[in-house]
């Protein structure tokens, strides 16, 4: 099965200019050789701390930024080779949702004009009446009313604005939506609504998402696969299930350990990250994570690890839930050759799950949630 999107060796170095004459004094290596692929209808989450380059990857895929190197193939076509006008036409198939719905909607455009614009640009819904009907349909699709089309963005709440941003992305019936932290500016209660909406729309239209987030708790609910980024590189990629059950890279483990559990009695690995992410202008040699890794060895400072399926023998372990070596690079890849030597990470996420009382409580809660959903 061929991929919808294939990204290889994607690199973006931003020049840093200093002084009155703007001499380039160095480069911020925001993205430094990223490879991944995405199938139609699939969700790939890219997670990592602020400054790891995850948002830059999203913008490079959409060609909102020009990569320094690498290739982005969408439906088999190299996007980077396209002319400006050809790229504009391709934008019908690739859309974006930004983090801050207060910034991403033009404050001087009515909702109707905003949603009609992509239709007009791509020659969809030819007549005014057809366009109006489609705008109403889009608003309905994201849970707003068609008569909201006359309003301006400032008249909506944050969650409603993000729904509008989703409606704008959907207007042209894209195949892929890059969602750059789409819920992190929203209240937790609204986050769930927006995530559920995104999942419902994915099922309905067969959308593929690149879901960029720093929040593994959110990602767990929407992603099929997760790529963990650190300082411009992917350090681990796996299916969501495999990553949560058996995280390999020390950085992934630290991220998972930072996810709050809704259970005060849970015990788990204490491997919280210390210190800040190093400067991307001057990344550490060898493994970029060695400065903060509690398992770091001498060789980690020297040798840059490859993102590999399994260092020695291709045996990923039966409990891993991998698709096996036949699936090639779609398995569980880790940029750390030493992961087998680390203590088991089974206690990271749902450690106290055996507890009988807790199971009963969870069932009770689940019953409430179901009842609540079924209420009209």
């Amino acid at each position, binding site marked *: 099965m061929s991929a919808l999107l294939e990204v290889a060796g994607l690199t973006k170095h931003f020049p840093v200019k200093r002084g009155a004459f703007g001499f380039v004094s160095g480069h911020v290596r925001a993205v430094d050789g990223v490879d991944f692929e995405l199938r139609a209808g699939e969700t790939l989450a890219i997670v990592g701390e602020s400054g790891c380059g995850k948002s830059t990857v999203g913008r490079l895929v959409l060609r909102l930024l020009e990569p320094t190197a690498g290739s982005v193939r969408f439906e088999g076509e190299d996007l980077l080779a396209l002319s400006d006008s050809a790229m504009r036409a391709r934008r019908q198939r690739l859309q974006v949702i930004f983090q801050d719905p207060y910034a991403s909607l033009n404050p001087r455009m009515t909702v109707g004009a905003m949603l009609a*614009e992509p239709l007009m*640009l791509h020659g969809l819904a030819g007549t005014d009446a057809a366009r109006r009907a489609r705008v109403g349909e889009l608003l309905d699709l994201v849970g707003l009313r068609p008569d909201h089309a006359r309003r301006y963005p*400032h008249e909506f709440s944050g969650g409603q604005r993000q729904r509008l941003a989703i409606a704008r992305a959907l207007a042209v019936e894209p195949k892929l939506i890059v969602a750059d932290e789409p819920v992190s500016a929203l209240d937790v209660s609204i986050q769930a609504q927006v995530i559920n909406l995104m999942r419902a729309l994915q099922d309905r239209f067969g959308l593929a998402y690149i879901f960029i987030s720093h929040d593994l708790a959110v990602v767990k609910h929407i992603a099929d696969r997760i790529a963990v980024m650190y300082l411009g590189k992917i350090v681990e990629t796996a299916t969501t299930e495999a990553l949560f059950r058996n995280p390999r890279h020390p950085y992934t483990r630290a991220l998972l350990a930072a996810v709050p559990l809704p259970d005060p009695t849970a015990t788990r690995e204490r491997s919280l990250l210390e210190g800040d992410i190093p400067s991307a202008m001057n990344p550490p040699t060898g493994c970029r994570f060695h400065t903060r890794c509690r398992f770091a060895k001498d060789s980690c400072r020297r040798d840059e690890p490859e993102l590999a399926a399994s260092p020695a023998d291709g045996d990923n372990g039966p409990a891993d839930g991998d698709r096996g070596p036949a699936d090639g690079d779609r398995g569980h890849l880790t940029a750390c050759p030493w992961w087998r030597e680390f203590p088991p990470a089974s206690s990271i996420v749902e450690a106290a799950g055996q507890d009988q009382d807790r199971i009963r409580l969870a069932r009770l809660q689940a019953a409430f949630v179901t009842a609540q959903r079924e209420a009209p």
Partner: protein
Amino acid sequence: MTASTLPAAPAADEAREENPWARAWRRLRRRKGAMVGLAVVILFVVLALGAPLIAPYDPIATSWSAVRKPPSWAHWLGTDEVGRDVLSRIIWGARASLSAGLVSVGIALAFGVPLGLLAGYAGGWIDALLSRMVDAMLAVPFLILAIALAAFLGPSLSNAMIAIGITATPVFVRLTRGQTLAAKVEDYVEAARAVGNPHWRIALRHVLPNIVPPLLVQASLAIAGAIIAEAALSFLGLGQQPPAPSWGSMLNSAQRFIEQAPWMAFWPGVAIFLAVLSFNLLGDGLRDALDPRHK
């Protein structure tokens, strides 16, 4: 839990449905200074447009029986050195002053905004070139440059307007460029690109409407400056040509009689003062009303 405590869909706030301009007008109305300014501006506009109906005398008709008469019931603001009615000349002079203000700022906007938008949006060498030209023009004092240009073009009111307009252009280029630089990194501009807008459409539909408020403020302040400049050029004989009236040329002829007939200089001075003050008040009010940070 029931549906009444958990609304299925978030209800939109029904209260406010007004566009940004309606809101700005509501806020402008609350500002006394701005409303006084607006009232005086409207008064001058009415005077200028209705001059043939309102002015009690022909502004260029001389009368040797009424030379340099002080204010009286016949001539409310007195007469000048050839017996022309000062009030009538001020009413007709409002045409020259206001049209000089509006036309020259119109010229400045017509050139300054597109150039600033181009410089700010395109960046690179286009920006560098335009910005250096603007810097060079701004290095010369406003009036000096206007006088030099007006002298070069030849003395007439329309040439004075062109000279003032060109001189006022760099300010608008610089302001538009700065605002464009700030607006073009906004998420909604990136979103406009992602949707597939061509560059010209992003600049005109997404950047320009969002930078109009500061431009409007600057324009109302620039009108005040242009009125002064027109008065100065007319005073120097480079603007409105005699015998047609303009406040500046009235001041010019009054200076020789400042002791014998001070009303000849006083009333044009008051007119300039009021027009400039009211445009400034209006501009300040607009700045506050259009700034979303003010409540």
